[in-house]
């Protein structure tokens, strides 16, 4: 099944102490989405990221689909877009 899933994924989480959004680089976590580790295998990605979560004091691990046609790393869903860029409104 997974072979047919052509989507690319990144992993996101929130920092425990302040809730800020961070991205998994494959080794550590960064607030810069561009440093994200990108893969087709979301199960593998989440498993790898999961192992670091407790040590890094992170919560709410999620995988996000990204747009493979975009040269920069940009999530597809509005939810993940907003999570990356902040509220879409001028608050």
């Amino acid at each position, binding site marked *: 099944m997974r072979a047919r899933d052509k989507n690319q994924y990144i992993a996101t989480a929130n920092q425990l102490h302040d809730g800020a959004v961070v991205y998994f680089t494959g080794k550590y976590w960064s607030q810069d989405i561009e440093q994200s580790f990108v893969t087709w295998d979301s199960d593998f990605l989440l498993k790898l990221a999961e192992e670091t979560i407790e040590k890094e004091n992170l919560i709410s691990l999620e995988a996000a689909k990204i747009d493979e046609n975009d040269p920069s790393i940009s999530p597809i869903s509005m939810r993940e877009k907003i999570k990356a860029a902040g509220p*879409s409104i001028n*608050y």
Partner: protein
Amino acid sequence: MYQYDAYDHKILEKRIEEFRDQVNRRLSGELSEEEFKPLRLMNGVYLQLHAYMLRVAIPYGTFTSTQLRKFAHIARKYDRGYGHFTTRQNIQFNWPKLVDIPDILEELASVEMHAIQTSGNCIRNTTSDQLAGVAVDEVADPRPYAEIIRQWSTFHPEFAYLPRKFKIAITGASHDRAAINFHDIGLEMVKNDAGKIGFKVIVGGGLGRTPIIGSVIREFLPERHLLSYLEAIMRAYNLDGHRDNKYKARIKILVKENGIDAYRDTVEKEWEAIKHEGNTDLPEAAQQLIFNHFTPPTYTHRARHKIDFEDFFKNQQEYAHWLSNSRHDHKVEGYAAVTISLKPVGGIPGDISADQMDKLADLADVFSLGEIRSTHEQNLVFAHVHEDDLPALWQELDKIGLATPNHGLISDIIACPGLDYCALANARSIPVAQQISERFGSDERAKEIGELKIKISGCINACAHHHVGHIGILGVDKKGVESYQLLLGGNADENASVGKILGPGFSEDEIVDAVETVVDTYLALREDGESFLDAYKRLGAEPFKGALYDAN
């Protein structure tokens, strides 16, 4: 207004000590997130998309200028300079750090405020009529009873882990401004034939996935038995409510499945046992102590604030428009209650900046005995304004952008935070509210349309009460794209009704046009003086469906 005594203060102090310890144990890794999450939720701390959110309880929507200044301080020091009033009369801060929250709670405690049970599957803040104590159509002031419920439900050991969250609303007035038909328990104060005060008790109302109008479980509950009866309802629900499916866990499903008569039998039997036990209802003296806090103020105040006459006469039409929808009759002759709209055209419903909070606190001191109310429609109220002070108050509110003359009109929109903040949302609510409010931004047009309540939720959980909007909008996720369904004919007041979905949803680009089509259809078909809701009742959904879908 209620003031804490030494017991209340001590309980709050101990709670902060406990929560600080829990946060520290979480940060040190001693508590896992799975263990900590219910503990933080029970204290109003959510994780949203980009940050934590702290929801602060405003018991029955009444607070002081001192408390408002404290909100401003918290917004500046620990957040991003603003706060957001919710549909349950509370205030939320959208950007606090977990590590700061114990300190924020200490700040709040210094002005007798807290975040206890503003989330979690427990008894939440009891909401009430924003005109409580001053409404002309009131049997009695419901707030002393709301305070009694607040105290009784605070850390109630038996009801800390209910099947699902539990919301109580109470009103003393015949016109329902507190949506009591759509709460887990709704209480309406009534007088019986003997002239005694009591409650009509409504149970099992709610919105969310399954909107249900509550059923009357008891026509008249003598007021001295309030707590024993509530306890009986809660105990029966705690034992029998669904635990296996989150979406069936609210009391409304239990009542619906068993039928109100069977549920009543269970409750009344339990109630007899509790009354026999005799230690749940408050002793009269204890009740009186709480009532003493709610003696009506003596109405002798007048601000005699300076009026800028030139400005006033230049803009007097605007003033008249503001007055016509923002002023409410008052029990005491010569006084009025005033709604302060938190819905500026193109603004974010319910948001208020720290600077506005500070200035509004000053105005409350000058014009309204230092007291402010929040409403479930995400506005604020000054409840004690001398009629002669209205022009000056209007001018002062206008200076801080809080004199939008749209209360009850089409741009007085309820919207949940939606996908811009909320981790549960499927679609954005705020931008849709902003666009609608801009589209109908002209005072003339809004006035012509008349009373029209739009309510926009960003998901099926219905935090913005879309089911009971005259026009309701529900944001859904349609294959990764935001889509908006239209519902018509909902009503949250004493003539409660649930809106019906019209048809297929609209995209973000189409939804404002769709609302305009509905409004234009109403304007074309209405009879003299007929409100939107009345016209809808007479016409049904068909003409609106025709206008929206047939052209395509």
